[in-house]
């Protein structure tokens, strides 16, 4: 008999741990499968039964970054020793590299648009959140609710006019257009989260600074911002992940120059049919950064996904 009547017994703990562990294993299997498939050869990836153990190859990654053509049958064999390692991999499959694929560009687009919109969103969100947290803004509650309600709209509901607007202004398929759009979509999240973080900073710090002769603006920059830095950082990661993952607007408004990776990755195909190792390689490079960020964010995760409704 334990002393605390409410503490679970060791047996309960063990059984709970086993069940949750099993669930974690099942839930991670698809993710591990994506990563593993990226290192499989074409044959291994469609082998029956599915191969858990296989000889790793960089074929998928090479195919991801290149477009290739079949070697014409009348061409004399080439010497493989003078080739780079990736040319050799392709050559052994009877193909030659035609040109680099679009994946690099699409990944770069995702990065530029993701970081650009996050930076803008953090700037606008921080100052608005500070005003909402500290000042008497007329109609404050209404404005805050208005900001939140913009998130409830199905993106498709405003997609038609945004599509028309972007077309008329020449913003279709541009960095600027996508950055402004993602900033607007993320602003509700950033204002709500940041207001929560700033509400937690005691007002006394600023009052002390104001008495010391700081102006309100200086107090904001030199006293409040350094205090809010963890909150700002975690909010920024949430905005970044959202912009990074967004698909609906990206597929409607971008097609070439500013196309991001999510609409592009599903369109990757090989010389003959779907090239799953290349798709998996593309997905891995795209998803792993988010996994790392999620682990870094774990303390603020709950707060972020509930718009600050639950602060723990």
């Amino acid at each position, binding site marked *: 008999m334990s002393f605390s*009547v*409410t503490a*679970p017994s060791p047996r309960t*703990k063990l059984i*709970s741990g086993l069940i*949750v*562990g099993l669930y974690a294993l099942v*839930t*991670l*299997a*698809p*993710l591990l*499968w994506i990563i593993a498939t990226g290192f499989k050869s074409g044959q291994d990836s*469609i082998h029956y039964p599915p191969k858990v153990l296989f000889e790793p190859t960089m074929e998928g990654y090479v195919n991801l970054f290149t477009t290739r053509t079949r070697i014409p049958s009348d061409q004399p064999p080439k010497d493989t020793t003078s080739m780079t390692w990736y040319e050799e991999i392709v050559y052994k499959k009877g193909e030659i590299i035609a040109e680099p694929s679009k994946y690099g560009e699409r990944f770069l687009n995702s990065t530029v648009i993701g970081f650009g919109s996050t930076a803008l969103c953090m700037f*606008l969100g921080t*100052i*608005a959140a*500070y*005003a909402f947290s*500290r*000042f008497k*803004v007329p109609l404050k509650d209404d*404005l805050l609710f208005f900001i939140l309600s*913009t998130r*409830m*709209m*199905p993106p*498709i*509901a405003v*997609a*038609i*006019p*945004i*599509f*028309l*607007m972007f077309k008329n202004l020449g913003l279709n398929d541009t960095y600027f257009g996508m950055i*402004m759009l993602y*900033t*607007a979509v993320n*602003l*509700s999240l950033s204002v709500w989260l940041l207001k929560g973080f700033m509400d937690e900073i005691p007002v006394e710090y600023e009052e002390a600074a104001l008495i010391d002769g700081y102006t309100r*603006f200086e107090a904001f920059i030199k006293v409040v911002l350094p205090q809010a830095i963890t909150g700002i950082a975690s909010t920024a990661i949430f905005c970044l992940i959202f912009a*990074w*993952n967004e*698909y*609906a607007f990206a597929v409607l408004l971008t097609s070439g120059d500013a196309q991001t990776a*999510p609409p592009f990755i599903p369109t990757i195909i090989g010389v003959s049919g779907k090239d799953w190792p290349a*798709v*998996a390689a593309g*997905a891995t490079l795209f*998803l792993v950064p*988010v*996994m790392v960020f*999620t*682990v870094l964010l*774990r303390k603020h995760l709950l707060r972020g*996904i509930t718009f600050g*409704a*639950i602060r*723990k």
Partner: protein
Amino acid sequence: MLKLLVNKLALKTPRGVSKHVRGLSDKKLAWLFVSPTIILLLAINIFPLLWTIYLSFTNYRVNRPNRDVKWIDLRNYERILSDSDIWQTMQATAHFLVSTLVIQVLIGFTLAFLINKKFKGNDLLTTLIVLPMMLSPAVVGNFWTFLYQPQIGLFNYAISFFSGVDASSFSMIGDVHLAPWAIVIVDTWMWTPFVMLICLAGLRSIPDSIYEAAECDRASQWRQFWTITIPMVLPFLMLAVLFRGIENFKMFDLVVQLTGGGPGSLTTLSSIDLKREAFEKWKTGYSSAYAVILFVTVFGLASIYVKALNKVKDR
């Protein structure tokens, strides 16, 4: 030098006056800080929404820019509400919404309940379990079509391994009976951790002392579960359902990549249908009315639900 003087003056002015002066500049600063956000949201959210509402009363088509745009009153709305295909997509959406919510609440709560037993390593497992929900639904949905391949897919293999059914005998996304569940399974895989995290926060908010008091009164474990745990977690659970409900009502990217709305139109959820009407058939006015109906539905359902939620909270 000047600044020092001003500060000295400021300190010597009577409290009421200085507060007034500072209040005034605060007000200006407040507007300066808030207005960019409001302006951007008006430009990219409210203005388009009003435009959608306007278009919904017209016969405008983007692909026929030279045709006269006519005001046709409520005819778009009449056509939508009397269209049997749209009711079918509404049904598909309702099926998706209700089944994902029920399954995710059951599994999510169970997991949270078990994690709250505070076994060794529960933090690490929690972090691992939440990974899927942060990933790109489009990219993940696309990869699940590979896992769902008959014969070579990992999912089909696992099912046949444990049940003995031939792995090539069924196709999750091609079969009319299985496809609606194929999208529920992937959504559940992605979003159960969301419900779990919120339930866990609820469970952790219950003070031990309540259970101790119940233990003193010799209330059974079963009774404690139903009279303490469930009522205390309920507001959290309802919040999770609200978030998931809104998100899944808007569901687009995951399902588009997974099934493309097929087979037939069995998994064509409202958002997917709307996208087709608007950007493939280019029925702009018609699809604007469609968008307004969806928006009003989600907004209406959400506000009724929030009222219920507040009642539970106040209790």
